[in-house]
């Protein structure tokens, strides 16, 4: 049988009564849906780590404990960096849509710097934890859950910084532009997601768990 005939009844006079309900020809967007599905899976992944952290909160049998070694100033500094970077990446996405490339490059650059700054603050904190307080992943249950949760989040920030850097390169070569801004749009969603996870991590680790 001919499959062409499946699509040919449109507008034919004989088939006018038989044409059936009108069909919706709107295109839908696979890049966005794919990224949303991926972020849902990421949310499930981090939820598991957070549940493990909460389950083991105050269960550690030996020190050092979070009360002894976790310091707020560095973590608050990191939080400010990430929250500000969510703002700048949002501005960058709008600038790319509106073809304001100067603003786009500038805000994207600031976002990357803020992300890198967050990682630097984490590195400083970890250096202190590991070398001054001798807290490692194997030292006690707190170290196990802390380095796992914060480490997986840090790895995601690192991936985000790399993705943003790649985006700026792609923009230079014209691969993304106001006409094709979806790839940047979904990377910015990923960045917002990583920031949101940090708010949860900060609340659980530095506010509730300390």
């Amino acid at each position: 049988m001919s499959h062409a005939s499946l699509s040919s009844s449109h507008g034919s006079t004989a088939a006018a009564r038989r044409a059936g309900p009108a069909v919706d020809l709107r295109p839908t967007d696979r890049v966005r849906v794919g990224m949303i599905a991926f972020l849902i899976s990421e949310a499930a992944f981090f939820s598991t780590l957070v549940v493990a952290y909460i389950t083991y909160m105050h269960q550690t049998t030996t020190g050092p404990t979070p009360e002894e070694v976790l310091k707020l100033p560095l973590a608050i500094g990191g939080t400010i960096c990430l929250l500000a970077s969510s703002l700048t990446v949002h501005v960058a996405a709008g600038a790319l849509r509106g073809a304001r490339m100067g603003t786009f490059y500038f805000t994207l650059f600031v976002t990357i710097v803020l992300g890198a700054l967050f990682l630097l603050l984490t590195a400083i904190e970890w250096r202190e934890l590991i070398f001054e307080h001798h807290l490692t992943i194997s030292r006690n249950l707190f170290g196990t859950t802390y380095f796992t949760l914060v480490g997986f989040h840090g790895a995601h920030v690192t991936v985000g910084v790399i993705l943003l850097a790649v985006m700026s390169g792609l923009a230079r070569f014209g691969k993304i532009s106001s006409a094709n801004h979806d790839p940047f749009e979904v990377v910015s969603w990923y960045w917002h997601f990583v920031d949101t996870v940090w708010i949860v991590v900060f609340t659980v680790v530095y506010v509730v768990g300390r």
Partner: protein
Amino acid sequence: MAVVEGASPDTPDFAAGSRRHAAAVVSTWVTTVDHKQIGILYTVTTLVFLIIGGLEAMAMRLQLWSPDANLIGPDAFNQLFTMHGTTMVFFVVMPMLIGFANYLVPLMIGARDMAFPRLNAFSYWLFLFGGLLTYFSFLAGGAPNVGWFAYAPLTEYAFSRDHSTDYWILGMLVSGVGTLAGAINLVTTILTMRCPGMKLGKVPLFVWMMLFDAILLVIALPPLTAALAMLLLDRGLGAHFFDTSAGGSALLWQHLFWFFGHPEVYVMALPAFGIISEVVPVFSRKVIFGYESVAAATVAIGFLSMGVWAHHMFTVGMSNALDAIFSGASLLIAVPTGIKLFNWIATIYGGRVRFATPMLFAVGFLAMFLMGGLTGIMLAAVPVDWQVSDTYFVVGHFHYVLFGGSLFAMMAAIYYWFPKATGRMLDERLGRWHFVLMLIGFNLTFFPMHIAGMLGMPRRIYTYSADRGWTYWNQMATVGAMVLGVAFAIFFWNIYVSLRRGKIAGDDPWDAWTLEWATTSPPAPYNFEQIPIVRSRRPLWDLKHPEDPDWDHE
């Protein structure tokens, strides 16, 4: 199917040409991003794993033939049941269903490929290498021996000091990432790639069920990934997640594993329901009874399946309140599942039923899955579970669900869609032999397990003493396993001969109604010359019966 021709010994020139040809065929299959080729790769690979997992099961059945047997030692037996379970769940049932979805979903929704074709190939290769990594453990000192759900603290370094558990973790992680990528791809494909007119309420039920199957995977698989990462950190870096001496908890692993593990059961069941919902109407010559209620029941099952995981843990000593909640939620799942069974039976009722092989397997599914469901209701009741937990009763139950359920449906699917994928029909006479022997062998193997279990035979023991009264039931099961071996031999022989001499199928051998039958068998790489426009749930019916199209009745 990838038929690679061997080099001919006759003439050197021809041999060289044939080698080039073989290399070209291999390179086509290795580099393909076509959803149909990837679907076939999935199916062929999982059939190979099915043979391996089946041989492992038969080896265990031989060991259990007589009391105090020593054919296979306890260590090897532990490896066999671990690898059998892991293989069947992660490398046979789940990926074969994903392979079917790969092949069928784009055709059924009138698309030219999946949403992300390269991601699709990536998923397949991760699945394959995850499987190879797990099996590589045999060469690296011994296969995993901690059971397919790998309970902590047995998996901790203190109790499992060789690398077999590490291979298990890595194999699960690698194939798990592949499965997750495949699920994201399926969700996106179904939500965004449907042809004009095919609203979500008009997709074939297989597509609808794959959508919820993929959503379940997207939500339930990452917790397993996280748990595996924790276990890997425990073993490799000395972390303490499941180490009770440092304040950790073995119970956390059980919660995390089953939070994945129970939705996983429905990940393996929903596509089977989808297959049955396609096969039963076509061979009953009726529209599915209650499309909307089948679709709604799917949503209900998907939702409920996330809240029942701790019914695997009634014996670990949770509170009475938790036991009651999880028991109630588990019993509740029987309602939407029952709705589906009644829908399928109502579809058959009054139809002009054709008992071709796909329909035989579909009816076999209905009966066998019903029995698995009924023992499932028994096990959801806490006191019954306390009595028979970790006995052969449980083994019998889940084989009725996964073998009598999922695998029977998968066989129906292979007989139904083989003509589409290859252009040739599978042999009906061999198909009937396959079905009859599989039905007999299946019941002979797994029904006695219920009785052995109620007589107190624990699962996973490598032998038993003669005075326990289990010998008779074990021997029945072993005979059944051999019958199953013969049934599968006939199945593979059928594939072999039908690929060469099978009847030419034509585009639409079953007089079916969904879009995959609108194109050639096998379909061209681009699937459809023109993207079809759809106005009802049975677009091919509309085409064949312009005087009475379905949209007048929906």
